[in-house]
């Protein structure tokens, strides 16, 4: 009898004493609150939009934009649609991010390695760079390059001229544009073939080394192939690449490629700011490899360069790459500061001008956020995959 009541006791216990049931009730309440809030916001928004006479939906994307954009990678003028302005902005965002990422990586690795230099002055200078640029807001740096440094550049007539037809003045950076002539395609084909050949060569050399212990000078052979063969084909085909040089006509330069100053200032600021973070990542990555690894490699008789290439860098990269990717993502998100200096990126063109023209706040902000969200979710998915692949397999 007593046994029976004991078994019954938990079941008969008060509803609130059972954690599982309590969890269900709690979750239902939370969900109800969130959904209720969502419905309330949705209702209010619809009501307000109706009141202001703004239609909802994405139909506006097919309307004619009617405004120009300073700089575009694809053909664009006032007659194109709002959908096109979205695309122009997106491409401009990607362009400045790509340039910024390349520059930041180069600068960041140089500063990071300099920070670890045994030379006192070099390491102090690198540290100074990191501490200064990391601790000043990025927006301030962008404004500084654009509003304070750009006016120091000369007017078009007194442009700074560099070797190879490059000119710099306060209207922008002027570069010669390559013009491919018939036959240039073959040079590219050669380059592609050589790259494939180098990959095969590396595999072959690796296998041969595993089998016979004979070392093949892969690096120098690859370099010679990569530079030599395309150059050879370029020469044989009669130099089928022409350059369109910028030239001063009237008040400004004509021809060639023009990089607008907004792009230059934004890319420089993003690169310099992010490079300070990358430098710290590189430093901590290299320092994370325990000194015993270096000593063990030396004990095995590996040379300094080989030790770096085969022992230190692969292990440091495991630490560096995840953080590096998140810095790339940050840089891309930070490129949204473009409206401050009028570079036509996604936020400036779409969430700025297009929003003002159409008033479709909800759709436009959602699309803009959606772009950044997609980017960052894609990258974090990649990161998870990478971390899983590179994770140390212990015991």
């Amino acid at each position, binding site marked *: 009898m007593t046994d029976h009541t004991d078994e019954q006791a938990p079941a008969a216990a008060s509803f609130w004493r059972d954690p599982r049931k309590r*969890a269900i009730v*709690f*979750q239902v309440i*939370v*969900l109800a609150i*969130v959904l209720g809030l969502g419905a309330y*916001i949705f209702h*209010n*928004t619809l*009501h*307000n*939009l109706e*009141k202001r006479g703004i239609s909802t939906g994405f139909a506006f994307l097919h309307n004619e934009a009617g405004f120009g954009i300073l700089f575009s990678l694809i053909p664009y003028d006032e007659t194109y649609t709002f959908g096109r302005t979205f695309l122009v902005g997106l491409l401009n965002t990607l362009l400045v991010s790509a340039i910024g990422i390349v520059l930041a990586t180069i600068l960041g690795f140089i500063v990071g390695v300099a920070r670890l*230099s*045994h*030379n*006192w*002055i*070099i390491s102090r*200078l690198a540290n100074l760079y990191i*501490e*200064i640029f*990391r*601790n*000043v*807001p*990025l*927006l*301030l*740096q962008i*404004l*500084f390059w654009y*509003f*304070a*440094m750009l*006016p120091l550049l000369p007017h078009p007539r007194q442009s700074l001229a560099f070797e190879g037809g490059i000119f710099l003045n306060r209207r922008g950076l002027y570069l010669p544009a390559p013009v491919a002539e018939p036959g240039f395609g073959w040079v590219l084909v050669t380059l592609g073939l050589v790259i494939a050949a180098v990959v095969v060569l590396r595999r072959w050399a690796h296998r041969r080394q595993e089998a016979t212990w004979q070392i093949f000078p892969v690096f120098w052979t690859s370099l010679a192939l990569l530079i030599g063969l395309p150059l050879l084909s370029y020469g044989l085909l009669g130099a089928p690449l022409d350059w369109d040089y910028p030239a001063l006509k009237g008040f400004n330069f004509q021809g060639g490629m023009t990089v607008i100053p907004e792009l230059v200032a934004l890319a420089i600021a993003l690169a310099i700011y992010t490079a300070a973070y990358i430098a710290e990542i590189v430093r901590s990555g290299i320092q994370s490899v325990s000194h015993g690894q270096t000593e063990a490699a030396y004990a095995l008789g590996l040379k300094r360069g080989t030790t770096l290439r085969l022992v230190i860098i692969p292990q440091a990269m495991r630490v560096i790459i995840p953080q590096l990717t998140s810095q790339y993502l940050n840089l891309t*998100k*930070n490129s*949204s*500061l473009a*409206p*401050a200096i009028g570079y036509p990126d996604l*936020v400036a063109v779409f*969430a700025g001008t297009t*929003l003002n023209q159409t008033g479709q*706040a*909800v759709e436009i*902000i959602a699309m*803009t*956020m959606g772009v*950044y*969200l997609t*980017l*960052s*979710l894609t990258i*974090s998915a990649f990161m998870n995959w990478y971390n899983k692949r590179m994770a140390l397999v212990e015991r």
Partner: protein
Amino acid sequence: MSEMMQEKYAPGTHPDWEPPATEVGVIGWMRENLFSNWRNSALTLLGVYLVYLIFVPLIDWAIVNADWAGDTRDACTSGGACWVFVKVRFNQFMYGFYPAEEYWRVNATAVLFALMILWLTVPRIPLKRVAGVLTLFVFPIAAYFLLGGGVFGLSEVETTRWGGLTLTLILAVVGIVAAFPLGIILALGRRSEMPIVRALSVAYIELWRGVPLITVLFMSSVMLPLFLPEGVNFDKLLRALIGIILFQASYIAEVVRGGLQAIPKGQYEAADALGLSYGKKMVLIILPQALKLVIPGIVNTFNELFKDTTLVLIIGLLDLLAIIKAALEDSNWLGYSIEGYVFAGAVFWIFCFGMSRYSRALERKLHTGHKR
């Protein structure tokens, strides 16, 4: 030297010689750190050249040739930096358009805040928990009434007149303080065993962390009025603050989650074994340990937020950077952008560098025993 080497000494009677002059002291240090081999020497020369290239003109411009005295741009004649511009506008940079006779209220708030921070950060002052509660709950209310006025005979100052460094600090401090509880709830939600709660927390955190702050500010300034019933409206500052708080909470949540994960499982199990409820387990056992661990992370987040408050410039609030930018467009002072931005940079740098140093010192203090 070679003569000394040739002398013979009986075992145990060798006299103690000074180390060679080239191995110790300044020369020894220089030989080791600057000229250890030819590559190092070349780098040193390059470094010295860089220092010469950067710092000589900089010091020349900023100090030697700079103008300090005077009240108008006519005083700037020497060709160096024109600090007169900063001097003339200094009050505006600090207080925005706050009425001059009420500056003491801003100062009092700042002093109060400094005292609270001192209480919280100097290890020797006791009663940290009281200080924490005061800073989190009492100080914001006191500061609001002190700055906004309208009570106790203080004249009312609308938020549109707040600006400059005052506004920057308000945005950053309110942003972090208000986002803190929300961040903790989200972090607990993400670690929860209830699937719906966890999913909602993850969705919230990933959503806000995936978008740039500027789109959040756009959203809060353009869309917030749409979300609310007709007639309800906030001022611009509050809208920006709501955006910042929602955004910042997701970052704090991730930092706190790191701390929660670092607490050994035994602590959770011990709390369960004692029969503590979820709330008691968290408040009494887990959170005190976890939050202590993440203080450096929180300071870093605050540092990032402090820099990010400059973004309110784009939605038209006059924080330190925005007010300097506006002052530079004054036709009386055209052409002094470098001075303006260098000053702004210096102010931000002092705050951010101080905070990053503090967080690093804390990290060193809290992580004992694992260091090489």
